[in-house]
């Protein structure tokens, strides 16, 4: 690696993007959630004992041959259709040849110049603005094994005394989704990956867990000078490829850091080297990977062990007809049907409660109440318990019942929280908890008016103040009544009752 000849001045991000236009393309690998691997019957379950989910085919033993998993084809076609791609009526797999110990055959079965899906797009919204990101291609390939480098301090190959390889991952179906260089900011890059993740989740084709590597992203970044008004756009600059970004935040940070780094180079009159880079979470910076001067020659050629894939129109149409509602369609519907704002949807999506809110509305609750209870109360409880909202021991239909009791006046918000406590504690449904804990709002007038009388008698000074017109002074009396009622009264009702009794 060469050291820079000049000391670079790092520009501020805003300054960098004011002068240079970032050009960003994203390559995303999604591990498909098929039960078995791409070319053999081995399980794809995550986290099994190393090398327990292998066979002659995925170990690449001499003589073993691949057989295409139909489910993987179907999942890839679903992704292609959801991304508005054309699905090839005829395509082939190709061998990508290179030597690496975690690759059992020393070639990867992938697709080269004949991908399954081409020419699509995905709309991404950032702060109210819609960006249409072109999809160049979606193709299928097999994953490699995983190397574990032992003996070094860092767990990296550098400094390790030996390496172990786990082939459980080898042969798991992957789709690679490649965008056009259409993305112009780190925020859109992040939003694209997020939208793609939601899309794959809604299609149920992958668990898209970035932290487990079932969705991984590489970002290609280059800069070009922004043209002066009236001048044509400059050609694309040299790009770097930052590999294996494993969180949405990393996507955004890595792209941002690359923009700043490249702007510094260009400002100093240096050139950007076309190379692979790695993003370091701790420093927030990218560093050069093992860059070879010439590009690796993968010697692609059509995979002779597999017949070409010729999907009929009927097949593709049937897959298209089976597609569930996509995130963008769903958002449009939720806005139209329930009056949610875009912000609401983002918040509910981030909190993982969108589905639950919808089910709660379906069970009879108003949209506003369903959103409020899931987003504020239940999402917080889930976070406290370290589970997802969907994993809470309360059903949307039960939440709808709680909301109904509030609307009827049988519960106050405070009481409702106690009912939720009871349901979460396994004491039964909302009605059972109300009955067992005696939580209903007391509407019995005699009990309430006795409590009001007691409170007035106990605090004659305050009562006088209220009588003399200082209505705001009634607060402590309300508190006293509520305390006497053990919270099972409606504060507003108590207040008006007190004012009425005091003639104010």
């Amino acid at each position, binding site marked *: 690696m060469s050291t820079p000849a000049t000391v670079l001045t790092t520009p501020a991000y805003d300054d960098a993007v004011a002068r240079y236009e970032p050009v960003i393309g994203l390559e995303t690998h999604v591990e498909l959630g098929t039960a078995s691997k791409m070319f053999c019957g081995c399980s794809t379950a995550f986290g099994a004992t190393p090398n327990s989910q292998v066979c*002659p085919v995925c*170990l*690449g*033993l*001499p*003589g*073993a*041959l*691949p*057989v*295409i998993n139909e489910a993987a084809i179907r999942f890839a076609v679903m992704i292609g259709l959801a991304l508005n791609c054309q699905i090839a009526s005829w395509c082939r797999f190709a*061998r990508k*040849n290179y*030597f690496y*110990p975690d690759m*059992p*055959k*020393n*070639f990867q079965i992938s697709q080269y110049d004949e991908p399954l899906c081409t020419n699509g797009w995905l709309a991404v919204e950032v702060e109210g603005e819609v960006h249409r990101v072109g999809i160049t291609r979606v193709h299928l390939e097999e994953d490699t094994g995983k190397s574990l480098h032992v003996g070094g301090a860092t767990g990296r190959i550098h400094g390790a*005394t030996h*390496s172990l*390889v786990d082939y459980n991952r080898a042969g798991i179906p992957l789709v690679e989704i490649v965008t056009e260089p259409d993305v112009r900011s780190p925020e859109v890059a992040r939003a694209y990956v997020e939208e793609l993740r939601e899309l794959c989740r809604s299609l149920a084709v992958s668990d898209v867990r970035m932290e487990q590597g079932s969705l991984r992203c590489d970002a290609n970044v280059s800069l070009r000078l922004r043209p002066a008004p009236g001048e044509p756009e400059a050609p694309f600059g040299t790009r770097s490829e930052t590999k294996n970004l494993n969180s949405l935040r990393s996507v955004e940070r890595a792209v941002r850091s690359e923009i700043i780094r490249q702007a510094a180079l260009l400002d100093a009159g240096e050139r950007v080297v076309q190379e692979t880079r790695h993003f370091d979470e701790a420093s927030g910076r990218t560093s050069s990977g093992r860059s070879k001067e010439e590009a690796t*020659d993968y*010697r*692609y*050629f059509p995979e*002779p*062990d*597999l*017949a070409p894939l010729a999907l009929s129109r009927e097949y593709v149409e049937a897959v298209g007809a089976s597609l569930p509602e996509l995130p963008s369609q769903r958002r449009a519907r939720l806005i139209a049907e329930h009056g949610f704002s875009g912000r609401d949807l983002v918040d509910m999506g981030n909190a993982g409660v969108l589905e639950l809110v919808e089910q709660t509305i379906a069970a009879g609750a108003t949209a506003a109440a369903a959103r409020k209870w899931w987003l504020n109360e239940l999402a917080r409880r889930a976070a406290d318990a370290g589970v997802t909202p969907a994993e809470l021991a309360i059903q949307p239909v039960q939440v709808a019942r709680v909301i109904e009791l509030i609307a009827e006046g049988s519960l106050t918000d405070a009481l409702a929280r106690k009912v939720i406590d009871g349901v979460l504690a396994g004491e039964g449904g909302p009605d059972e908890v109300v009955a067992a804990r005696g939580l209903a709002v007391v509407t019995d007038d005699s009990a309430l008016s006795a409590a009001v009388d007691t409170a007035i008698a106990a605090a004659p000074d305050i009562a006088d103040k209220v009588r003399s017109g200082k209505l705001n002074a009634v607060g402590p009396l309300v508190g006293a009544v509520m305390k006497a009622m053990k919270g099972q009264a409606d504060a507003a009702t108590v207040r008006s009752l007190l004012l009425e009794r005091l003639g104010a």
Partner: protein
Amino acid sequence: MPLALKDVLTARGMPTTCGSRILEGWYPPYDATVTARLRAADVVILGKANMDEFAMGSSTENSAYGATRNPWDLARIPGGSSGGSSAAVAAFEAPLAIGTDTGGSIRQPAAVCGLVGVKPTYGGVSRYGLVAFSSSLDQAGPLARTVTDAALLHAAIAGHDPLDSTSVDRPVPPVVEAAARREVPGMRIGVVRELSGEGYEPGVQARFDEAVALLAQLGAEIVEVSCPHFDYALAAYYLIAPSECSSNLARFDAMRYGLRIGDDGEAGAEEVMSRTRDVGFGPEVKRRIILGTYALSSGYYDAYYGQAQKVRTLISRDFSAAFERVDVLVSPTTPTVAFPIGAKVDDPIAMYLNDLCTIPANLAGVPAMSVPVGLSDGLPVGFQIMAPAFADDRLYQVGGALEAALDARRGHSLLAAAPAL
């Protein structure tokens, strides 16, 4: 029924070496589909037969475990790459053998050992468990002393296999019935013009011409047919086969099985791979890996691999056009009889020319048989029959008729003339 299995097919309980040091000590954990079908038919696998390393060769001299000799003349080669299989059957060590044929590796050994050898239609016999040399060309098939024996063995191993995506799901051609029918009246037999003339030994050409005349006597109609692109078959083959082999043999890297050289605690994985492949592969295998790596390289792909694939298409078209006029095509199987051991080891091109007549059938995926038709200078001469894809039965029909007529004329089978060992 005992059988010798070419050491390129896996069988549980026995090593599979492919004639290479790099697979030294490897016991496959699974049976090839061919092996499984043989076992299911109560065939006893006597052992693994020697071969040219990874089936690359025409003489069985390229084996890390030593050369195999021709039972007709121990100073000569038994053909290759299935030379262990052909020698075992010709020497009466095994009544049947399985070979594999990528460019003639069943038919040429059968020819030079006086046996019947068949390369079935590509996709007719499962390749699962056949250690690949050139995936789009490899096909396993029978080596036997008679056409009927070959047909019975063919029927036992053929048929669709879901484990091989290139295996074809259609009924096995009625090869056993065809071998019994042995009739050629009314059949149109095409003699390939391009597969004769210069480079063909006079004795080989004479036996071939006599056999064609005999088929005419038996009632077949003889037609001369031109397949102009066969002239480019050898060149195309020596680009396609090495290209595929360069990729297929990449897996032999010391990481998971077989030989491992240089793992001294200091060397990295890349160095261990490199040292192992240096020691583990023989010169012919290295030559083809280098050739194939070059042919697939970016910038050369179109000129070499791409061009070879176009030639392949043209050869298929030659076959299609010919089969519109005739039922089968015939030629000598090899231009020469068995040559002395060592005669061509230093001349790869001369060695490659052995496969001149057999390669077109592999490139087009059509079935072909070699059947013995006599001796030249005391050594067997093979007669090649080629049929359209999935018409393997025609090979047996014509081969059976020829075999019966020759045996009747001679008063005994050709193998009965073989010298005692």
